[in-house]
């Protein structure tokens, strides 16, 4: 039977939504014993939040004074220490998990499987290569300890309502002092987070200026959506780097994705192909974005976006 350790991602006393998706992925291993490890300085509400996730058998709160900032250099020895008895060690394939898990894998001499999108068995997994342009099935021999990061766009969140036991232990791992947190400049907080938003509106090069990009913000705010941008728009300076959606930016899977003035380069489509509904607005009827759009509208965005805003306003009255 699989013994799965899920490394929780959390910040500011809140469990990151990616953790529930990682738990859901772990529960596709039949009969798995799923333990969530939460690394804290002690007394954090996060362990109790993890205990509510359906499918979790136990929550292990590992405390250490250095856990106020979740740095890979200091977390990895702790994960490796508590991870020894487990057959599978999972973390979300967010920048947190991507940073941490290879360091854990090296400490445990275990192979890592990155960006798992499907768990076929205890030893067989599917993962994308070439930015999702090919999907591989990878296998390890039975009994191989596996470290993996879970592609959160491929799994739903585990339900709540669980009541797992929380166990707290002080870490006895020897931790290095060579890595220190300095600061975090958070992305804008007045809009939903691009990575986890259920609705995303993105603008492309056709906006033609940073000023015109405000049109995208305006529509997004009316819909309660996060704002994204194509690489072309970012490179042209219309939108900041952290808003880039695509292979080299953020890979997202919202319920609704509206691409405005985006032609649909392969590298952009790679970032949105798991969106539930894709809407494309573009004046070029030949734009590749229409090949993947569920709803397409050919026309001038500078006319269509204000019209759409008016219709949204009218529907709210």
């Amino acid at each position, binding site marked *: 039977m699989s013994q799965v350790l899920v490394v929780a991602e959390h910040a500011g006393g809140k469990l990151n939504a990616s953790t529930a998706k990682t738990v859901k992925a772990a529960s596709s291993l039949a009969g798995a014993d799923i333990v969530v490890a939460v690394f804290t300085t002690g007394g954090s509400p996060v362990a109790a939040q993890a205990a509510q996730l359906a499918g979790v058998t136990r929550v292990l709160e590992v405390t250490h004074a250095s856990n106020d900032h979740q*740095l*890979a*250099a200091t977390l990895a020895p702790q994960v490796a220490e508590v991870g020894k008895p487990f057959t599978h060690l999972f973390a979300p394939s967010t*920048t947190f998990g*991507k*940073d*941490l*898990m*290879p*360091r*854990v*894998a*090296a*400490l445990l001499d275990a*192979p*890592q499987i*990155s960006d798992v999108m499907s768990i076929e068995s205890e030893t*067989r997994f599917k993962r*994308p*290569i070439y*930015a999702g342009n*090919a*999907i*591989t*099935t*990878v*296998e*390890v021999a039975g009994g191989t300890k596996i470290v993996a990061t879970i592609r959160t766009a491929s799994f739903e969140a585990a339900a709540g309502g669980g009541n797992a036991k929380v166990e707290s232990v002080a870490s006895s791992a020897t931790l*290095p002092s*060579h*890595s*220190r*947190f*300095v*600061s*975090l*400049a*958070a992305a804008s907080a007045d809009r939903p987070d691009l*990575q986890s938003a259920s609705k995303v509106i993105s603008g492309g090069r056709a906006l033609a200026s940073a000023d015109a990009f405000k049109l995208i913000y305006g529509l997004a705010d009316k819909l309660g959506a996060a704002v994204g941008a194509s690489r072309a728009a970012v490179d042209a300076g219309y939108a900041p*780097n952290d808003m880039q959606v695509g292979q080299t*930016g953020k890979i997202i899977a919202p*319920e*609704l994705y509206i691409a405005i003035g985006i032609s649909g380069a392969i590298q952009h489509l790679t970032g949105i*192909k798991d969106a539930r509904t894709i*809407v494309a607005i573009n004046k070029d009827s030949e734009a590749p974005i*229409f*090949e*993947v*759009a*569920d*709803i*397409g*509208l*050919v*026309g001038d965005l500078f*006319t269509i976006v204000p019209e*759409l805003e008016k*219709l*949204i306003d009218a*529907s709210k009255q």
Partner: protein
Amino acid sequence: MTNLPRRILVAIKRVVDYNVRIRVKPDGSGVMLDGVKLSINPFDQIAIEEALRIKERGRADEVVIATIAPADAQATLRNALAMGAQRALHVVTDGAHLEPLGVARVLLKLVEKEQPFLVILGKQAIDDDNNQTGQMLAALWDRPQATFASKIELTDTVARVTREVDAGLETLEVDLPAVVSTDLRLNEPRFVKLPEIMKAKTKPLETIALGSLGVPPDARVKVSKTEPPAARQRGIMVKDTAALFAELQKRGLV
């Protein structure tokens, strides 16, 4: 780090050029690689550029490029030298396959030989998309890692690195020596000029047989099938904004 040579080691990988449209073999045995253009992994190109800029700022004396690849990858190393690096190390694999942990073990051997104060490499190769090697090297070396770097500032003893993380931009301070992996926006790599290409032909390039390094083969993850991704179906076209809004309402999306 004061007694370390002022040397930066940059690890690069030769991959299918990012402009090539990938096709999966019909029998599911892999992707078609015959005759496709091969280039330096774009994230590794950024790593080379950053090392050169650090040297040009007077914070390093030497930039050494390393790759682990078949014998015919020498042209890729010459391209890296043409960007401005001083010399190259070519660990020749001769058909042996290495997983990221094996690659990290080989790089550790090179680190022990060269004693760099900084190792820079791409955050991931755009073929396997593993995003593991830098972190694994840092763990085996027992040194700090600063992944997904968008800015690197150096003093004699520390690197202050800004990282692109999901929550925004995180800044870390790490003691040297350290491993830094690059993200896309760290810099824009320079174009190579013809005289540099000529000069690169005579720069030192050391070949090292993989077998001579004593790193055990590492083949625990087997690829049993490769398939194309599920295609999205083309949807409907609507004639105007009102029809678009009606369709969104019908689907419960607004």
